[in-house]
Each structure stands twice: as structure tokens, then as C-alpha cells.
């Protein structure tokens, strides 16, 4: 799955859940770069991503994510495995 397409879809997911206006994610975006992205909204972000892409993450792997790039790598891995 194309990385740019995933980022575009993630922007929409984040905007819908965080409700803080337009979001422009990149591989290096971290929690600190997005207003309203905290531990509580992160639960909804992860659930929305899982539903949107029809995948499931493991708790062990999401705690290793350092930025959006790691999240996207994980999405791509999951989509390829399916």
C-alpha cells in the first residue's frame, strides 16, 4: 500500500478524532507535534486505524512507535501479511 495514501488517510482519521483542525502528518511527526494527541485520544486513534485498515496491532508493538513513520511501517507490515 502506498505510503502517501496511508498518510493522507491517517490525516483524516486524526482530524476526525482529535477535533483540533487540519492535521498534516509526516514520518517524523510525534505525539508532541499534534495538538490534542494524548494518551486518551491515542486509544481512539489506534482503534480507528485498526477499523479503517482492517488490521489489528499488538500492545507490545504500539509501545515501540516513536513517530508516525513507525506507525505507518506497522500498517504496511500488517497489510502485506494479510
Amino acid at each position, binding site marked *: 500500500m502506498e505510503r502517501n495514501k496511508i498518510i493522507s488517510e491517517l490525516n483524516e482519521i486524526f482530524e476526525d478524532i482529535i477535533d483540533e483542525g487540519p492535521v498534516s502528518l509526516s514520518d517524523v511527526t510525534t505525539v508532541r507535534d499534534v495538538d490534542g494527541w494524548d494518551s486518551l485520544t*491515542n*486509544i*481512539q486513534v489506534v*482503534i480507528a486505524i*485498526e477499523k479503517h485498515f482492517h488490521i489489528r*496491532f*499488538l*500492545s507490545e*508493538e*504500539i509501545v515501540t512507535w516513536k513517530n508516525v513513520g513507525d506507525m505507518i511501517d506497522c500498517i504496511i507490515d500488517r497489510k502485506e501479511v494479510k
Partner: protein
Amino acid sequence: MDFQLNQCYKQKYCVTTEVYEHFQECSQDFNPLHTDEEFAHQKGFPEKVMYGNILNAFISHFIGECLPTKNVIIHSQSITFKNPVFMNECLVFEAVVSDLFEAVKAIEFKYKFIKPNGEIAGKGLIQIGVLK
């Protein structure tokens, strides 16, 4: 997590006078549809209509008291009211685990409240989190 996909829970809830009065006191909603028999008749109902959000209070009880663990918190819940509930009706609440999100320890339930005549009083989705 102590939950499995498609696991089903059932619980009986009755809208008694006590429940009605406590909810009215809590909500301070005295809309005539809920308090005035004559008004309810004029609007096409056989008697005054119970507060729909009493069903949300029942959901609160279900999540807080009826699950295999007390380590839970409600993330969100939705409800669509399908048919009115009247005084002293007892409803069967059925909730099925419709989705599990292991990575963030969250569970979704699809639920419905069934009236004595088999009609659906309300239905929706509940998402809860399991606390560490």
C-alpha cells in the same frame, strides 16, 4: 482481557416508579411527555412515556456492575430509541462483544433492549476500556 468475541450478556431491567422518580430528580426533566398522561395521549401515546435516557442509566449499571471485572471505564456509547417504554415495563438487555482491541485494551459491545412484546426499545454501541 476477560472478554471473547461474540460473548453474550443478558440482564433484566424494570422501569419502576422508583427508577422513574429517581431519574426525574437527577435529570430535572419535567417535559409533559414524561409527566402528563393527557399530554401523552394527545401526542398519540397510550400513557406517559418513560425517559429514554433511563436506558443509558441501565447501561451504566451493566458496565459498572455486571462484567467479569470492575477495572472498566466507558469510552463512548450510542443509543437509538426505536420504541417507547412505559411505566413498569421490564426490558431484557442483551449485549454481545462485537469487537476487541487488544493493543489498547478496549472492547465494543452491540446491545439492544427488548420490550415484553418483543419490540426493540433501543439499541446501539458501547466502547469500554479495561483499566490496568
